């Protein structure tokens, strides 16, 4: 258990800035997730913390101690790999015992701790098996037991679930979260799966191009994305890019022009709204001040059981997606129909088209 501070970490490869001044503080016992598309720098950052990559500049502090010059094998950091990295020539028990043997613990203690760790990941009684006799999910449990048995200061996980099928992924995801809670171990978790990140994390750090876009709780990330990139990457979002803004923040989009004070003094704005934040209504309905009303034609309806997705071609030209919870049958037969989309203004996300930064209303 330890607080982790990453201070202004940068790493450059010949042509790519892999990490660009990453500055993060991770609280003791926190489940902290690095989220981003492939190539965003999240794995580079994780491997830098683990000690396999040396940053060009910046400092790393764990539990009040600077670790930059500590070699990887002296860092006392648990690591869980995407491809499990189980030693194929050792039994499950020997895999889990490996770290304790490196630390020269007494034989009796090793045996007890290995048994406890395997029980913890629900693999009690599998100690004598060889890795190839285990399923992928079981192998990753061994990887987890092997990483936590050394009681590391921090636990690093590099997309540990991405090689598993959907059902196992959800099961092991919950197990990882429970295990982390009960051990109270500071954890840095890397994933590109935004839903996984939302479910599992205390806080999420969204990265792109080696830069941190936003750090926040899952709620903050989802409902107040700090940049257009975060808005588009986490959850599904409709984006209407680069709209002209009239004098005094006037927005001439859709049936009724609205004036938004927050936009006063700006030329252009990018609008975004979540699929589920819109509602459908008949043309001509609604003329309230707190909504935007956009007219269009239904282009396609996709039924997915408990929900349906509407693709609507707006009269203004762009396509927009809307999400309908528990759709009724009659709604599904409306391809070609005219309708009006209602966008509550308080649910709109506004971004500066030039910088991609959120425009806050206060």
């Amino acid at each position, binding site marked *: 258990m330890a607080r982790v501070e990453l201070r202004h970490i940068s790493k450059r490869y010949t042509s790519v800035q892999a990490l660009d001044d990453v500055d993060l503080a991770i609280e003791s016992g926190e489940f902290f997730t690095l989220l981003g598309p492939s190539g965003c720098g999240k794995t580079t950052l994780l491997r830098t913390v683990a000690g396999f990559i040396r940053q060009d500049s910046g400092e790393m502090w764990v539990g009040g101690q600077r670790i930059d010059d500590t070699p990887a*094998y002296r*860092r006392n950091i648990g690591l869980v790999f995407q*491809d499990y*990295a*189980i030693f194929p020539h050792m039994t499950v028990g020997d895999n889990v015992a*490996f770290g304790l043997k490196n630390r020269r613990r007494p034989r009796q203690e090793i045996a007890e701790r290995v048994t406890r760790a395997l029980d913890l990941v629900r693999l009690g009684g599998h100690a004598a098996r060889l890795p190839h006799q285990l399923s992928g999910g079981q192998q990753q449990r061994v990887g987890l037991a092997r990483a936590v048995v050394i009681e590391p200061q921090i636990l690093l996980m590099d997309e540990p679930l991405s090689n598993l099928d959907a059902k196992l992924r959800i099961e092991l995801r919950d197990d990882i979260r429970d295990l982390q809670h009960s051990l109270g171990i500071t954890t840095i978790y890397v994933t590109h799966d935004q839903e996984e990140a939302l479910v599992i994390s205390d806080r999420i750090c969204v990265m792109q191009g080696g830069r941190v876009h936003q750090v926040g709780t899952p709620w903050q990330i989802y409902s107040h994305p700090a940049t257009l990139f975060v808005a588009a990457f986490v959850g599904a979002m409709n984006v209407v890019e680069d709209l002209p803004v009239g004098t005094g923040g006037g927005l001439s989009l859709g049936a009724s022009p609205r004036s938004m004070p927050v936009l006063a003094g700006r030329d252009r704005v990018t609008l975004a709204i979540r699929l589920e934040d819109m509602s459908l209504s008949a043309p001509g309905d609604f003329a309230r001040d707190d909504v935007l009303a956009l007219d269009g034609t239904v282009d396609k309806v996709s039924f997915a059981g408990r929900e349906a997705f509407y693709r609507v071609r707006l009269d203004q030209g762009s396509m927009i997606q809307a999400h309908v919870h528990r759709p009724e049958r009659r709604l599904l037969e409306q391809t070609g129909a005219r309708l009006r989309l209602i966008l509550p203004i308080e649910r709109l996300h506004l971004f500066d088209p030039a910088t991609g930064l959120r425009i806050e209303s206060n």
Partner: protein
Amino acid sequence: MMRRLRLDFWSGVLVFAFVVIAVLMAWPLYSIFVASVTDNRSGAMTIGNFAQILGHPAYRGAVFNSLIVGTGGMLGAMLIGIPLAVLTTRFVIAGRDILATLAVLALVSPPFIGAYAWIMMLGSNGWMRAWLEGAGIALPPIYGLFGILLVFSLKFYPFVYLMTASALGSISPSVEEAAESLGAGPWRRFFKVTLPLVFPAVSSGALLAFVLSIADFGTPSIVGGGVRLLATTAFDLFTAEMGGNPGLASATSVVLIAICMVVVVLQRWAVRRRDIAGSLVRRPTPQRLRPYAAIVAHGVCYAIVLAGSLPSLVVIYTSFRKTSGPVFHPGFSVDSYTKILGEVPHVIANSFTYSTAAVALIVILGTLIGYLLVRRETLASATLDNLLLIPYIVPGVVMGLAFVVTFNVPPLQITGTAAIIVLMLFIRRLPYAVRSSASILKQIKGGIEEAAISLGASPARAFAKVTLPLMLPGIVAGALMSFITAINELSSSLILYVGRTMTMPVRIYLSVLDGQFGTASALSTILLAATGLAVFVVFRISDKKESAFV
């Protein structure tokens, strides 16, 4: 890791590897090159040696003949190897594992054994010639180009066969079925789809056959009947009784290397952008042939493989015949063995000692360099990788000459010692060990070692506890294959040996030239037994089996 030069264990290995290559490869080859452009008497720089090779009909003939032998050996190997590969992978052939094993045995047996066994069969007094003439079939004389090409084709076809068969086995049947569904008949499908897919493998096998044919020294000097080739010319020029001609010998060597390089470059160019990595969902299933076709197919396969193994069988048989000098008597005996054990026990001991010593060096440095190439990718290790391609294309005769030119004067005067032979075997075979250890490592995920390090193992301990145990079967297989090639090495040893340091292949070669077939056969049988045993062990520990040998 790439950020700065760190003076750890692996940087030490890298530096050591460069030193070894500089001393044992770059320096000797540089010496040969310098000698090739130096006038023997005045010591001045000249292109006279090369002018003489192009100008003098005898030397020009050697270049021409070498090209014929290389091309002919290659085509012969393809002509035999490709049909065998197609038949054994596409159709049900009984005992195909036996065929593959016999092909491997033919491959690893020393080439000059084939040469003199064929003389015993088809030479002017050969029993097979007598037998065929009795049946009214007159054969062309075995001595000369025909004999050389016969021996090379039957000796080197396994390269083409094993590589092609392994490539054919990894073509997804869906690809061929797709061709068929698009209207391609069997022949069109084979030439338009299957063959292009295995072309990289076929051409690698063919390349090996070419380079080995052109580099081989024993076969043409035994069965060549005076045909001049570059390899034999270089040897003769260098060892001539009345003061050799080192300048011309070196120039001949340089031409030999140049030809091999051109061919390697051509092959690389031909297979560029041909790295076909298919995902294999299904494996091809061999089809059952109709009865008469099956008989023909079996006949062809077994005839090829038996012809390839015939020399070894003849040699073993001959070693147990009663003999006095060059004359064979009716009946069997172990006289030949008694004779060699009495007369040349040190030769047998030398062969095993030198090969074992060379293999020990090869395994240690080869494993470490292989690790460097795969796990510590840097500009320096990539350079090392490219440098290690050189021994593949430098014929043994040339390397032997280069060693003599370089190491018979201070600072490193080691000609006539056992060390020079061991070092020669070491540098010639090091690249093979590096390549095999690199390919094993590529199959071991890098994360495994990082896992060990994150659990508190130092890099050295992680290597020893995790990586090394996983590499071990591959290392042992690689070591045995190095042993096989080391103990059968003739051409370079023939240049480097003195009486004390004579090895079995050298003794066999000299006995054959003396007509002492009994002694030669007994020594050859010992070589074959050692080789066969090593092959057996490789088969037991390697899951890739035959393909491990190419």
